[in-house]
């Protein structure tokens, strides 16, 4: 009943095209039998009969990697950080993760969780994924050795971190193309986590709704910028090398950085289009580098203008964030946020920056250090939340997420 959709080939639309093609072939057969006009009008009157519902689409839960990392980003996300209660020991952590794993396995496949009081809300998974991440204290309490990078990021000069958006022992990334699905799944998981952990923070984000633009379109942030052009493509060797950890209990897992970046939309309004393009090093209109015409053109950092200045300025975000060292790459999977503004203001918006990389210290930190030292965009953006998690590998049916350190 539900369609599967996870591999990049499928998420690019191949499955959907195949499905629609099947419908067209059936239509030809029907046309031969009852006349083309009748067939066409019948199809026009009942488009639902041949159009698969996105709500029925599922992403496999079990596998070598957890879903929700290489999954085409869904439209809605809730990031929820939990802190373990003081009395919860390793046995309690195992019981917690077995329960949450079972909930996620059912919910992502469009079934109510066990003891779900609203299973009717689970029947439209809409590509729901639930991804678990372990904070430093979780790994320590499990008695496992943590990778060296599993610790709060170094303090950056641009940071104005607020504790209510920082750190956490256990992260739940709940994402789907439907906000009701996200709300129900998060609610179910939190009910089952309640005996073990308390909510530390919740951060919700959104992208374009499903069906608004072609799959694979780079997202735009609320500054209007095309954001994430340089991302490696899931399913490629480059992606695998950048994202997946190779060693120990984390093999098949990854490192996750969550940063809440406040964006001053009012101040950004003061900047005219040429200034915006200069700050980023890309045209806001197309996302193309200032030395190119297409979003995916390689930037030419050596190009100079008539009076000898670099076309892509040294202080631009593109120049500063682009590493010369090819191992310093990350995979970004962020979301916008736009919340109730404080009194007297008209917006409280920004970017829920999420990146996945095998080694946060080696890949993420050098990039962030450069941006901290110099990036014109810092005039308009302020990191106000920061958290780091180890995302363990996936599991097989019958197993549970985190079994590598809890069983």
């Amino acid at each position, binding site marked *: 009943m539900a369609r599967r959709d996870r591999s990049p080939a499928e998420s690019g639309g191949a499955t959907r095209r195949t499905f629609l093609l099947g419908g067209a072939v059936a239509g030809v057969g029907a046309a031969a039998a009852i006349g083309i006009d009748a067939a066409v009008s019948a199809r026009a009157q009942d488009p639902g009969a041949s159009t698969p519902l996105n709500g029925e689409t599922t992403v496999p839960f079990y596998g070598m990697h957890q879903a929700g990392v290489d999954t085409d980003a869904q439209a809605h996300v809730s990031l929820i950080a939990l802190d373990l209660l003081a009395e919860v020991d390793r046995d*309690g952590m*195992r*019981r*917690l993760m*077995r*329960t949450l*794993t*079972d909930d996620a396995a059912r919910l992502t*496949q469009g*079934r109510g969780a*066990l*003891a779900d*009081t609203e299973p009717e809300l689970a029947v439209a998974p809409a590509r729901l994924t639930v991804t678990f991440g372990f904070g430093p204290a979780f790994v320590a309490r499990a008695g496992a050795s943590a990778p060296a990078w599993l610790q709060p990021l170094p303090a950056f000069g641009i940071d104005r971190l607020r504790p209510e958006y920082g750190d956490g022992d256990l992260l739940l990334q709940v994402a789907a193309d439907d906000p009701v699905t996200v709300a129900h799944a998060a609610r179910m998981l939190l*009910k*089952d986590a*309640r*005996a*073990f952990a308390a909510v530390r923070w919740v951060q919700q984000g959104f992208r374009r709704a499903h069906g608004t633009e072609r799959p694979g379109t780079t997202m735009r942030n609320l500054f209007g910028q095309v954001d994430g052009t340089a991302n490696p493509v899931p399913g490629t060797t480059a992606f695998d090398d950048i994202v997946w950890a190779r060693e120990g209990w984390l093999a098949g897992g990854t490192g996750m950085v969550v940063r809440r970046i406040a964006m001053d939309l009012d101040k950004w309004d003061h900047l005219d289009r040429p200034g915006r393009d200069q700050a980023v090093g890309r045209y806001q209109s197309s996302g193309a580098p200032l030395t190119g015409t297409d979003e995916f053109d390689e930037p030419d950092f050596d190009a100079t203008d008539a009076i000898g200045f670099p076309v892509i300025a040294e202080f631009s975000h593109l120049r500063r964030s682009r590493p010369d060292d090819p191992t310093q790459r990350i995979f970004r999977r962020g979301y916008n946020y736009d919340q109730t503004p404080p009194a007297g203001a008209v917006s409280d918006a920004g970017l829920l920056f999420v990146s996945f990389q095998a080694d946060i210290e080696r890949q993420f930190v050098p990039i962030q250090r450069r941006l901290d030292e110099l990036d014109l965009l810092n005039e308009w953006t302020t990191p106000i939340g920061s958290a780091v998690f180890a995302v363990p590998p996936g599991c097989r049916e*019958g*197993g*549970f997420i985190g079994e590598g350190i809890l069983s």
Partner: protein
Amino acid sequence: MTLRTLRVSALAAAAVLALAGCSAPASSAPASSQADAFSSTDVWVKAADSGMTAGFGELRNDGDTDLTVVSATDEATSAMELHETVPNESGQMVMREVEGGFVIPAGGSIELAPGGNHLMFMDVTSPLRAGEETTITLTFADDSTAEITAPVKEFSGANENYEGGDMGDMGDMDMGH
């Protein structure tokens, strides 16, 4: 979704099935016993440190004659009863021990659910903690038995069974026996 009945020892089944809430006939059951036709899906038990609690889930009968569950046990409780929830003379819903046990129709199933029929844990003697599994043994009319491995879950509902924490104070609900 899929019903899985493993014709293996209950211990092995418990080891592989984790949170699946599946059942296996006890290996001692003779061939063509009632237990052989039995299977269960998504059985779970409400967490409780002590006192009363309940178990829920789907009980199936894949045989061609009706199957009757006459009793149930679990090491976590000193006694267990098979309960139904029915209206009394004044229309109030009350729960009581079902007469003659749970009858699972041939080729059919019954649903045990909060607010409906359930397996009543009368006195929890070792805590049933969320995320653990517990083993419920059902006995059928022909004395054959089946074991169900059921996960324990936190649950806020199903309070009519034991609101107030002891058998002398059941809130608004009449135990009916």
